[in-house]
């Protein structure tokens, strides 16, 4: 016999997932359209934006596979101030690594909700997982493909979703791109 379905709760969950998906897709638009100032606004003031490096380690030694914050060096371990500095640099028009600007396309998929925090019946935060493919084409033939997973904690602030923590797991050991001037 099939388990009883709580249609109300399932529907709510479905709507929440759709809401989060919409948020990520809209974010991808902001990035690909290079509306970086608006993009910055999607983050809480206490955000941690972390992209660790990935090591080749022996079977079972997984805890060392990813560089740790705050002990070790990562590709990114930014806060709102550093993210803002990066955006300001992109907007100078003389940041040669992005001048002329690259063509970038963010594909986000596999969005799922891992944990929901509620307060008085209201959803206040969600932990999400997703996959990304970021394609960059620069000048004539320079092309990079960044593929990986993202773990985001979104918080409800003033009726809006804000990213409070983003961990980006890029599936590369030696970085195969010459720089990381794109956001993830």
């Amino acid at each position, binding site marked *: 016999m099939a388990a009883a379905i709580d249609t109300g709760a399932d529907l709510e969950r479905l709507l929440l997932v759709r809401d989060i998906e919409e948020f990520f897709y809209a974010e991808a638009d902001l990035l690909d359209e290079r509306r970086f100032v608006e993009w910055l606004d999607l983050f809480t003031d206490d955000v941690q934006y972390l*992209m660790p*490096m990935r*090591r*080749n*380690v*022996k079977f079972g*030694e997984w805890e*060392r596979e990813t*560089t*740790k914050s*705050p*002990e*070790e*060096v*990562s*590709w*990114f*371990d*930014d806060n709102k*101030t*550093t993210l803002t*500095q*990066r955006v*300001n*640099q992109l907007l*100078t028009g*003389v*940041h*040669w*690594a*992005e001048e002329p600007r690259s063509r970038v396309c963010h594909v986000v998929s596999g969005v799922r909700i891992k944990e929901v925090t509620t307060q008085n019946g209201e959803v206040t935060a969600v932990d999400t997982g997703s996959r990304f493919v970021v394609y960059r084409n620069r*000048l004539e033939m320079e092309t990079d493909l960044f593929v990986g997973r993202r773990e985001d904690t979104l918080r409800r602030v003033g009726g809006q979703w804000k990213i409070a923590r983003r961990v980006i797991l890029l599936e590369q*050991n*030696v*970085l*195969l*791109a*010459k*720089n*990381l*001037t794109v956001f993830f």
Partner: protein
Amino acid sequence: MIATSMKRLVDVDSGIISREIFVNEEIYRQEQERIFTRAWLFVGHESQIAKPGDYFSSYMGEDPVVLSRDRQGQIHVFLNSCRHRGMKVCRYDEGNTPVFTCPYHGWSYGLDGSLVGVPRFKEGYYGELDKSQWGLVEVAQLCNYKGTIWATWDPKAPPFLEYLGDFRVFLDGTLDAFDGEDGGSEVLGGVHKWVIPTNWKFVAENFNGDHYHHPTHISVEAVGIGPGRTGEARHSDVQRHRRHMTSFPEKGHGWRGGPPQSLDEEIYPFPRFELPEAEAYFQAAYDRRKKIGAPSPPTWMFGGGGNVFPNASFHIAFPRSICVSHPRGPLHTEMWRWYLVDKNFPDAVKDHFRHYSMRYGGPAGMTEQDDMENWCYATAASKGPIARRYDYNYQLGLGHGGVHPRLQGAWVSDGEFSERNALSMYGHWAEMMDRAD
């Protein structure tokens, strides 16, 4: 080997260098033979292999090597290639192990490189294989200098300290703690590794002595990434007008920063930090230096950098790091970057340095992204048949400078802008490339 003398491509006296040395496949192959098998190369840091059994996989030029610490605590550097059929015996980035077992046919080697296990030793080799002859290939010389591990394949190379000569003071300024404590630094965990489409010498030359490339960095200066506080430039004006270029024509090393001088009372050598813990730490370090009369680092504190020939580049402070440009063909380089901190840094100061290192250096570094764009497209635009006919110009500050008053075998520029360091590096490079023995 190429018939032409490299001295025809590198004209130190008139400051003219052929583009061929940056793009030519045959010259690249000769470099592998004559530079990278003979020079002292940076392999890693002692703090990465703190315990017996620890190892760290690295490279010397194109050759993969393993840096290991054996059971007796002795440090070794081996070619990471099995003596049987060449398989990489270690494919992990780092870790701890009692032996390296080859995944192909199972030969195993101790952390001292000795061949300790051979499958079918009795029924296959009839016990006749002389294991003592088939250990991992070890470097000819190794030197642990203030925690940094250097090695060379050449038994005839001069000992490391002689190879460095008086250039050593600049490396000391980088490897001693900020208060002058001998070798008081260590590396942070996590080595930045990335590949860029440029010749390795573009990187070495830039660290070795290019202060002319301010236009590269106008965007990061407009933003003001620190190190003391947000909105502040990366280097101070005080330091800027005291900069000089120092190079060693007989050795190929170069330093951009300033000549060594005694601690200058009027000029406080560190940034002023917004972070109270950092401000307190550096003020105390300054006081301690003065008290013990530690030899002053070369006007350094706001930055400066150099290159130990051929490809071990470094930044002395803010950030403090070692950057090796491993050659990967004439048109590619694999960059490896370690970041140094004082062993005695309080956690808050260490974290401040870690953050500054990441926003300054490496592929996500707001400074170096623009360097790489320039190196890569300079390489791309130099490889065509017409481009190769037109030499590069190294005449900036040519003839304006002289013998260094204090450092043996060194030349120092009159002012900040000079390309003499690059000429010293390439002059030595040509010398080594032409030497056949």
